Structures are given as C-alpha cells and as structure tokens.
C-alpha cells in the first residue's frame, strides 16, 4: 500500500524497539528504521511507529515498533471523505471497534509479550509509512 501519509493505528500488542535481537537481524540493529532488517517470521507483526520514509534521519526517528495485530487504521483521507460516505463517520466506538474486536493472534502476541517481560495491551500510535516515496 503506497502513500499512506498519516495513519493512526489501533492495535493489540506491545512496544519494542530497533535494538531487539529477537525481531531484528543483529547485523542491522545499528542502522535506521528504513534499513533495519526484520526477521522474516515476525515481519507481519511489526509496525513502525512514526516512520516517515524519505525524510528520516537517525536523530529524528522514534526507533519504536509495535509488535502486534492491527485492529483499525485511520487514514486522514477518510476524514476528508466522511461527508461523502455516511457509513464512515470518522467517529469510532472504542469499546465496540477496538476492545471487542476479534483478534486472530492474541494468544501468540501474549506469549511474545511474556518473552519480552511485558504485557500486551490495546495501543494507539501513529504510523507514517510512505512507500516508494509516493508522498
């Protein structure tokens, strides 16, 4: 998906960072968020926090990732278009839309959290992923 300019993500998971050798290739953990290599078997669970692809310097990076399952992602565009689409109000019921959402990988994420000596929870964060410099 190219060109997600501003994307608020609701997810079930926990925070980790670029230095975690369980999820990132050790040879690349000193690099930046754009070039760090995520281990293949964990790729689908790792979400960048506030990564902006072509305007990122090492100092400006969050270096944070959320290991978890996405529940809802809110793009700015949906805010602009909400008037045109009455089904998408841009007003979410957190209990129904997030806390009661069906999770496919909750027990796996809970186990991973335990291995990282933390607990999974419902999280909100911003993800500015912008692939192929399409912004």
């Amino acid at each position, binding site marked *: 998906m190219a060109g997600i*300019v*501003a994307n*608020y993500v*609701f997810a079930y998971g926990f*925070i980790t960072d670029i230095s975690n050798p369980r999820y990132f290739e050790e040879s690349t953990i000193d690099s930046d968020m754009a070039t760090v290599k995520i281990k293949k078997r964990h790729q689908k669970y790792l979400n960048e*926090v*506030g990564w*902006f692809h072509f*305007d990122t310097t090492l100092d*400006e990076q*969050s270096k*944070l990732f*959320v290991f978890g399952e996405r529940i809802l992602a*809110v793009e*700015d*565009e*949906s*805010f*602009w278009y*909400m*008037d045109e689409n009455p089904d998408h109000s*841009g*007003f*979410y*019921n*957190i*209990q129904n*839309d*997030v*806390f009661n959402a069906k999770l496919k990988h909750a027990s796996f994420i809970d186990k991973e959290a335990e291995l990282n000596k933390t607990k999974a*929870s*419902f*999280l*909100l*964060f*911003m993800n*500015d992923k*912008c692939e192929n410099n399409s*912004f």
Partner: protein
Amino acid sequence: MGIDSSISIGYGFRIPESYYHKLLRKDPEDDNYYIEDGHYTHELFDADSTFVYGKILYSTEAREYAWDGNREVVDLKKALKINHMQKKKIDRMAAKCRAKAIYFAAGTIY
C-alpha cells in the same frame, strides 16, 4: 491532502442538532453558528461542525506536515480513565438528550 489533523479520544456523545441551543453557546461573531466551550463541549470536525459533549482524554498534536506530531504509543485503557463524577455527569446529560455516551475516537481537521 488532509494531513492537517489530529485524533482525539474521550468519553462522551455526539450532541443531536436539536440540543445545540441547550448545550452550546452561540458564536458571538456569527449568530448562525455555535461554538465549543473546550471544557465539556468540543467541536470535532470543522468541516461539518460535529459537537461532542464529554471529556477529551487524549489528543495527538495537530500536524501540518506528515512528519509533525506525536511519536508516542498510547495505552488506550490507561488513557481512557475518567473521573467517576465526570462520567456520571456525562451519562446524565446523554440521557437528557436521548443519547448514549461512549468511549470514542474521532479525527479532527483544523
């Protein structure tokens, strides 16, 4: 492109238009419009003047550019803690307006 925005989460309800005159103040600069008090009433979408009665418990910063804004991760259950008396007050007002208060998340355009 709508990048000049933020997201707000809180506890409250959308004020039905028929209750605007009871819960909102008239805009002193234009009698055709209503304004928020920023305390219990909040205007969430400038584009269509949606008003919420309730408490905003967390807001991301407004971003003019994609690289502005919060970079933190928010634990929702911790962020959504609300004072018991405030919650009761909001629930009472919701009942008066035949609405139901919820924990909400809403995008805001400035």
